[in-house]
């Protein structure tokens, strides 16, 4: 029966993992190398793992332990591969993509920042300001149709103003973080109260500066609420372009030549 391999991450080394790491089902995590990179796996019996808090935490714990010694491309929860040959086949197909990502993410962490603002309160203030301007026009009396259109327009103006205020704050964030973040991904107003949901890719040696920048941002608007998390493995910054990652046949043959017999035998003793 072919063994099932649970894949935690792709690492930038073909060396064995020195630290004892235990993953799902308490199985030891080891590296299956492919050329100069590797796949951190453990063997599992169950085809799929239940999506429980503890299983997710175990997966994350393995990735974070790997992160202390390697650059890691974290793999999504519950990626199970049927046998070493299939895994090597995947590694071969994605080799270029994996290499590019490992290079780009070397010595970098991910940080998450969420900012919550009191949207209702801010809207109230916007409405107050708009009312002052519009008071005369509203009092001038108009048909229900015109009034309806006016109300619609007013709502549009409120939303636009809210967005403008959000943009202004995000601009401030950018000023503080741009110096220390290599990459960022932001989503504005996912919900009315969630002003920004952002992730930043930060070099290890700039972590302190980044944290300080965050303190500055907080002090700019102490009435907002902030959720800062990290350092994380770069979950949000792995970019796979499957098409370009696939190698031509000739390149694949070259790569396979490079896979040493030692590499092929890794994990074979436990089959």
């Amino acid at each position, binding site marked *: 029966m072919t063994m099932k391999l649970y894949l935690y*991450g*792709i690492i930038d080394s073909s060396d064995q993992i020195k630290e004892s790491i235990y993953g799902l089902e308490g199985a030891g995590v080891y590296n299956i190398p492919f050329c100069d990179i590797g796949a951190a796996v453990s063997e599992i019996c169950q*085809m*799929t*793992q239940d*999506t429980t*808090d503890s299983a*997710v*935490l175990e*997966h*994350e*714990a393995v990735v*974070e*332990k790997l992160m202390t010694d390697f650059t890691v*491309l*974290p*793999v*999504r*929860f*519950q*990626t*199970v*591969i*049927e046998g070493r040959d*299939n895994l090597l*086949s*995947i590694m071969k197909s*994605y080799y270029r993509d994996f290499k590019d990502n490992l290079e780009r993410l070397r010595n970098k962490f991910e940080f*998450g920042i*969420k900012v*919550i603002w009191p949207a209702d309160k801010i809207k109230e203030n916007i409405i107050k300001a708009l009312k002052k301007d519009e008071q005369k026009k509203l009092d001038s009396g108009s048909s229900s149709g015109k009034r309806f259109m006016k109300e619609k327009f007013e709502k549009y103006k409120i939303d636009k103003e809210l967005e403008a205020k959000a943009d202004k704050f995000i601009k401030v964030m950018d000023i503080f973080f741009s110096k220390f973040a290599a990459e960022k991904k932001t989503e504005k107003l*996912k*919900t009315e*109260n*969630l002003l920004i*949901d952002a992730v930043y890719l930060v070099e290890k040696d700039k972590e302190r500066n980044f944290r300080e920048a965050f303190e500055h941002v*907080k002090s700019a608007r*102490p*009435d*907002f*609420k*902030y*959720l*800062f*998390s*990290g*350092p*994380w*493995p770069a*979950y*949000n910054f*792995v970019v*796979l372009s499957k098409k370009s990652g696939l190698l031509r046949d000739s390149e694949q043959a070259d790569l396979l030549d490079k896979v040493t017999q030692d590499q092929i035998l890794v994990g074979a003793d436990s089959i």
Partner: protein
Amino acid sequence: MYNVVTKSKDVTLLEILDRVLDKGVVISGDMVISVANVDLIYLGLKVLLSSVETMEKLRGSPFVGPMQEAK
């Protein structure tokens, strides 16, 4: 006074779930990949939905970073 969201264990868990279940390397978006009639990869992702507005309510113990939380 700062009105910072207090980062409880629950909040950290949600941050972890958001990443582990929804981000990272995905070999394929399909639930099952079939290559040469062999099922290679099984991705059994159950989507957990949470919002930060829910997180806001989860105030409790002081924040501990994900490195500590996950272990």
